[in-house]
């Protein structure tokens, strides 16, 4: 287990180098000169030169990249071109908001997704199953920004139950969490259904039935335990979709998190902000994948890890 963990952690390094060089090249080839947008096109040439030097953008690209990596290791993502605040400070202050949103979405998605998938699998072929299955495909086909706007229109503008936008307590959290959870919820319901149906047909279930074990125990202990692996994978992979969805959801609901921060960075062509957001987003995603790998091991001893039997 330790060897496996170390190997996995070592694999993160090339991955992160890859990600940082991608984001770095991406943002370096951006159109529009950020220096001009800071001081205006008619600024004194000396002023422009001075700012260039401060930003390090007059030097060779490799030196710039190395400087960037050095800063990254120090936890320094540069300063926003507009607010001149440290990107890392903004990211840290906004991260808890995004985390709250993602956790809220996750709780909704897991509980409802598993529940609906379970019902659907248990009643497979019936009317209920068809309704749940078609609903989940439909939800998967609605873009997050549309479901967000519809939810906002209905619950806050028409029924006036909850505030339409802003950051704050639970009342502000509910609508964006529900919006963000929808695609993950639908995926989860689908995967739970297919996996459970596969497991229902396995010989050990027949054996369990033949031994006279109660249906409830078979369903919840025997079947669910064996179906958990693909379900956990999807729960983990969906974290990426939360990060994607957060950009749209936070923009629509005015939730002050990393997603909206990314969007503002894009609109203003604020390179350090965009780079910081992409790197933090990817790092979180990679770490979650690692945690899921470890979870696999504890869920299913059949999963053979690297470094064993070799």
């Amino acid at each position, binding site marked *: 287990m330790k060897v496996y963990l170390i190997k996995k952690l070592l694999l993160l390094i090339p991955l992160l180098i890859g990600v940082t060089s991608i984001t770095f090249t991406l943002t370096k080839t951006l159109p529009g000169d950020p220096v001009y947008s800071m001081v205006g096109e008619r600024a004194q040439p000396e002023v422009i030169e001075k700012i260039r030097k401060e930003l390090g953008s007059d030097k060779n690209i490799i030196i710039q990249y190395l400087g960037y990596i050095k800063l990254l290791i120090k936890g320094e993502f540069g300063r926003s071109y507009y607010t001149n605040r440290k990107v890392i400070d903004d990211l840290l202050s906004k991260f808890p908001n995004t985390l709250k949103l993602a956790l809220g979405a996750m709780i909704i998605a897991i509980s409802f997704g598993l529940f609906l998938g379970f019902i659907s699998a248990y009643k497979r072929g019936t009317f209920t199953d068809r309704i749940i299955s078609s609903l989940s495909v439909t939800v998967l086909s609605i873009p997050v920004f549309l479901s967000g706007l519809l939810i906002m*229109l209905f619950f806050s503008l028409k029924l006036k139950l909850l505030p339409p936008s802003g950051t704050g307590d639970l009342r502000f959290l509910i609508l964006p969490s529900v919006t963000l959870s929808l695609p993950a919820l639908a995926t989860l319901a689908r995967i739970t259904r297919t996996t459970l149906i596969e497991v229902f047909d396995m010989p050990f279930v027949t054996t369990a039935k033949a031994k006279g074990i109660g249906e409830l125990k078979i369903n919840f202990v025997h079947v669910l335990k064996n179906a958990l692996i693909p379900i956990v994978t*999807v729960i983990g992979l969906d974290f*990426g979709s939360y990060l*994607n969805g957060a*950009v*749209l959801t936070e923009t*629509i609901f005015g939730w002050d998190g990393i997603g909206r921060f990314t969007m503002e960075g*894009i609109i203003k062509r604020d390179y350090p902000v965009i780079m910081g957001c*992409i790197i933090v987003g990817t790092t979180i*995603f990679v770490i979650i994948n690692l945690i899921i790998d470890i979870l696999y091991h504890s869920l299913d001893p059949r999963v053979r890890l690297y470094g064993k039997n070799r």
Partner: protein
Amino acid sequence: MGKTGKISLYLLVFISLLSFSAPLISPYDPDKIDLDSIKDAPGLQHLFGTDNKGRDVFSRVLHGGRISIIVAVLAAFLSMGIGLVIGLFSGYLGGKIDTAIMAIVDLFLSFPALLLAIGVSVVLPPGIYTVMIAIAAVGWASFARLIRGYILIVKEAPFVEAAKALGCSQTRVLFIHLMPQCIPLVLVLMGLKLGGYILTEASLSFLGLGAQPPAATWGSMVSASRSYISSAPWMVLFPGFMIAITALCFNALGDSLRDRYGLKIKY
């Protein structure tokens, strides 16, 4: 193909025909501003109502659909092409090359897709080509991974050995014997992915990174009209529903193709 698959296919053909003949059938000029009929509710005069500048929403939806559908389909072909070639080579050659290529594929798969697409769309000037490239830059990886996995199995088949024994060159085995084997898989995958590409295109347009005004796509129409959602909801609802219906049809079509070919692809 099941009933759902057929219905989705017919609907898709219908939507595409409508969108592609937009210049012929749309009742108004999609960009014509008519200040006398601002935010008219849907009715006989304007089927889907008018927007905040008096433009006919129906005509705009038709024209916008053309861009959205073309972009998604071309992006799918682009991802498929790149993914197919890389997957073929990776699976066939095996060994260290395979490991290296798969490491790169994993790198791309581990990127939250929309973030990468946003990154690409920020670098290149916004527009429909950028959206296509952005989608393909993310999309090729899943094609490559699945095709590689398939080739790993197929390349052990006796017919490959026979081809080699007959003296076929590597390239011939790869492109004449192995590639056609991937066609069903590729078709199913494209069907499954297209719904998602429609949504990605819409999301990028929504974020203002797609086709630039005055040209409209479904996504940018929703984006531009979202502040009018309570005073003129039709401005948001019609383009929004078109996105959802098109994506739904592609998803349903992909699902039924998958079942038809008996492939086990979970996502």
